[in-house]
């Protein structure tokens, strides 16, 4: 096993293997060297607590091949927003990491990274899940929808998105992608929810700004328009 030294924030980390070209020659964005900007570095420190933890993640794709044939393969096909990607994902990677750092879909936020805030909510099929608390390997066979996949192909906003704008629902906006995804799932299942039903459905999405009533109003407005 490679040993990882303490992280030096002034250096870019060494890029991984050369970019792989698959399916239509699209470059897998995860291999682009991440420039360790001050913001990235701070994020690494804040999210991982210890700096070493952050670097272990960045290099985690270099673990040796497994010996037991029955263990999962690292190469997975993952369908996100209708597009199937062939990517290498280590078994210990969460869906939130795969979506953000391998597929570059940074609309999905990581707030708490432990199932306590809802910022990372995505759809697996029609159900909402916390992508921070789901292994990517668990959802290989499920269609994933992130906030980027909510608007129409022509970019037309979903009624929920439009209603959130109309109701000035987001304040800082960090929880908004999760709120949008959860609200869309609710209206798919229950197009005319009562306010209490909406409140229950949204109860897994924390809003640090406390804009709950605005989001609820947005949902009720969207329900009229869907």
């Amino acid at each position, binding site marked *: 096993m490679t040993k990882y030294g303490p992280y030096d924030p002034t250096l870019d980390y060494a890029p991984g293997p050369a970019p792989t070209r698959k399916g239509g020659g699209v470059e897998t964005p995860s291999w682009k060297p991440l420039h360790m900007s001050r913001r990235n570095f701070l994020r690494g420190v804040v999210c991982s607590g210890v700096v070493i933890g952050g670097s272990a993640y960045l290099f985690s794709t270099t673990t040796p091949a497994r010996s037991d044939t029955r263990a999962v393969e690292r190469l997975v096909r993952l369908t996100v927003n209708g597009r199937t990607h062939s990517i290498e994902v280590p078994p*210990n990677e969460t869906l939130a990491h795969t979506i953000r750092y391998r597929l570059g879909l940074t609309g999905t936020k990581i707030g*708490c990274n*432990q199932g306590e805030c809802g910022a990372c909510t995505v759809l697996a099929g029609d159900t909402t899940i916390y992508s921070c*608390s789901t292994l990517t390997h668990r959802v290989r066979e499920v269609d994933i929808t992130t906030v980027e996949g909510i608007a129409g192909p022509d970019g037309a906003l979903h009624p929920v998105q439009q209603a959130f704008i109309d109701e000035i629902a987001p304040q800082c906006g960090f929880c908004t992608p999760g709120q949008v995804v959860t609200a869309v799932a609710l209206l798919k299942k229950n197009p005319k929810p009562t306010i209490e039903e909406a409140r229950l459905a949204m109860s897994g999405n924390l809003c640090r700004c406390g804009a709950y009533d605005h989001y609820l109003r947005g949902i009720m407005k969207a329900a009229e328009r869907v």
Partner: protein
Amino acid sequence: MTDVMHNFELFQPATLADAQAILGDHSDAWVLAGGMDSLDWFKHRVKQPAVVVDIGNIPDLHGIREEEDGGLWIGATTTLTEVNESEAVKSRFPILAEAALKVASPQIRNRGTIGGNVAQDTRCVYYRDGFPCYRAGGNTCYANTPTAMNREHALFEVSRCVAVSPSDTATALAALEGVFVVQRGGSQQEVAAEDFFIGPDVDITRMTMLEPGDILVGIRIPAKWAGSRQYFEKVADRNAWDFALVNVAMAASVEDGAISDISIVCGAVQCTPRRLSDVESLVRGEAPGEELESLVKRVAARGAEPLNFNHFKIPLMENLAVRAIRSLA
């Protein structure tokens, strides 16, 4: 504070037999169902098993079946949302549906399984933060010192460890006298709720009788309480995410205005769901009403030994027991 998870090998067997074979090959293998509890342990780097066996692909462990005797069988990997939305559960055992609905948040219920919910480890903050306490193999309890934050901890049956049962569905299943079907080695065992959940006096490192290598296959709920008068209530700091400070589940039958049979259980007051047998024997044969309620209040928490910061759980528990009995009036 969370970290990236340690490296582990992941297995996703498609049959129970394969899962058992893998568990047999690797003595420290970790069973993963919805992962809502497990991934927390990994991200905090407190538990770092080298092998993780994801049982989510095994059809035998999933689903809800009606049994011939009028009871139900619920597979271990059935999600809490599925339990909560099942018509069979709602019509026969509403307290189980309600308990499942009160767990955590909708997204957690969509992934979290009933098997994982009853098998989850305790939420004692010291232990979860990796303190080397009794439960973690050390020789002290950090939650039971004069300055410890032990507002969530136990009132009863303390044996060195003062942690409490975290699960909401466990309380309901204990009240419904559920039977836990456990695959151990080549055979299946049926374990009653009072033997499935174990206290620190039996084994301080585990919350259930499940040992490494065991798989909980499902839970059988006997017909006994199907359609009876039932009551569930959970009190927590917030309506979403928070674990119960105290919860209560009751199933009872009332004949000619008197309580003919009853099963009542409180969770989060000791390491296992606590059957309130004093209340049960007190109310059997009695008519619900104010007089009975005042007696129930007196016995519900009898014998409680509060810690520094959890005295409030005593009146809370008494009042929840009273409200359960009041629902029969």
